[in-house]
């Protein structure tokens, strides 16, 4: 890893990000949602599921979406090949490109959580859960961005990511059978495991989110290797 190369990619990305209206508007979505939920709560504490819905929206609509768009644009415009052919390593490129998304996600999540009340997140499992969720959505976003080849194609992949992984808590409001297969599957998804870890201080749930992160990392690595050469 080379700090100068990472900071060069970060500096380039932040300049590029500030000129990209599409990406600039994404971090506003969770903040607006937090404001709406806060008004609906009438001063009462929001249920954990709703709080995690905002977390899910932040990670899917900001982290995954920004990363997908940025990587797909690099891929589509062939600028990624320039980075790959430079002395920058795989980690220099991935870390450099993730820093901007990380920064924007942090700002968007912090503002959203401050609106609805940040106190529930001041415990170890919740913080570790949030970090792992961030990594999961980040790696998934990079992988899909590399895989999708064009910015237009990312929108087709973003919807399933948002509904499956970002909005998972909504499943309880669909009136499905509580003991049914769909709910059982949904409860193994990262956001649901983060809720469980938060609620029960459960380390096993954190372990399952970590497995999702490993899976997303593998997916991203395979996509990167396929993009790195023309073989």
């Amino acid at each position: 890893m080379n700090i100068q190369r990472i900071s060069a990619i970060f500096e380039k990305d932040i300049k590029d990000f500030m000129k990209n209206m599409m990406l600039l508007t994404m971090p506003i979505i969770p903040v607006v949602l937090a404001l709406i939920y806060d008004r609906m709560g009438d001063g009462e504490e929001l249920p954990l599921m709703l709080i995690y819905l905002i977390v899910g929206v932040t990670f899917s609509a900001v982290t995954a979406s920004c990363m997908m768009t940025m990587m797909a644009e690099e891929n589509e415009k062939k600028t990624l090949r320039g980075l790959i052919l430079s002395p920058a390593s795989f980690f220099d490129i991935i870390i450099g490109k993730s820093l901007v998304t990380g920064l924007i996600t942090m700002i968007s999540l912090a503002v959203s959580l401050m609106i609805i009340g940040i106190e529930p997140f001041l415990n170890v499992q919740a913080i570790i859960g949030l970090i792992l969720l961030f990594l999961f959505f980040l790696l998934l976003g990079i992988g899909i961005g590399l895989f999708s080849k064009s910015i237009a194609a990312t929108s087709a992949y973003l919807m399933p990511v948002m509904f499956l992984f970002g909005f998972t808590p909504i499943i309880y409001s669909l009136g499905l059978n509580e003991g049914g297969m769909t709910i059982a599957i949904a409860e193994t998804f990262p956001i649901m495991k983060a809720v469980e870890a938060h609620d029960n201080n459960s380390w096993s749930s954190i372990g399952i989110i970590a497995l999702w992160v490993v899976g997303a990392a593998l997916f991203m690595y395979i996509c990167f290797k396929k993009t790195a050469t023309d073989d």
Partner: protein
Amino acid sequence: MENTIEVKGMRKVFGQNAAIKHVSFNVKRGEIFGLLGPSGSGKTTTIKILTGELGQTTGDVKVLGIDSNRFGTADFKARIGILSDNSSLYERLTVYDNLKLFCRLYNAPLAHIDDMLREVNLEDERSKTVSKLSKGMKQRVLLAKALMHKPDLVFLDEPTSALDPGNAAQIHRGLQKLNEAGTTIFITTHNMEEATVLCDRVAFLHNGELQELDSPNVLRYKYSTHAFHVETFAGDKLVIENERGNADQIRDLIASGQVKTMHTDNPTLGQIFLKVTGKELV
């Protein structure tokens, strides 16, 4: 002289099709080497193998003394510069910001940016957003990007294809200067004039096979008919074979003051390519 590129029995197969069929050649250190061939002949595949973007199916490839299985290392990448059809710029950023990124990635001094902008005649556009540049200007920024870290070896895939003659000539002068400073240049081009002016040696690639490899002058001599082409003031065009028996005829033409022009047969590289491969170099 030490070889910068060594290729022995290189073959590249895509599915059932062999894009490169057992190609062998060396490029000497400090040389400008031209790879000429029509579209689809395997030029870009060759450059991609030499830069590590593609792996060869069989054969040995060494660049700068480094074996092809180590082309992914930072040390190798820092020593080469590439301008290919895969090269691109960040459209929303300025020319300076684009070059600054690559200066920092290659650990080159930022002062090189202004030097390179001067070389490619784009000093006045340094603060312009890339999306506002013409195609030719973008090509010159890409060239600056490829050369900015003063690499030992540069791969240029059709470097002047989008440039007007004036800018192309300036780029040629810049490349010659770079070469005089010791940089080896591997160039692919359709432009025969460019190949003749720039290249120390050229190779003809056709259907994935090397057909000829030598200096442009040697090739022109080899494929010349050695005949004299004479045009008289009366408008007659004569072709006189370069044979001892024809010396009197030539002497008489000169003595009688009839000769308007007289020159030996010097085929262009394009004509030689057509003769060797049966295909136009387009």
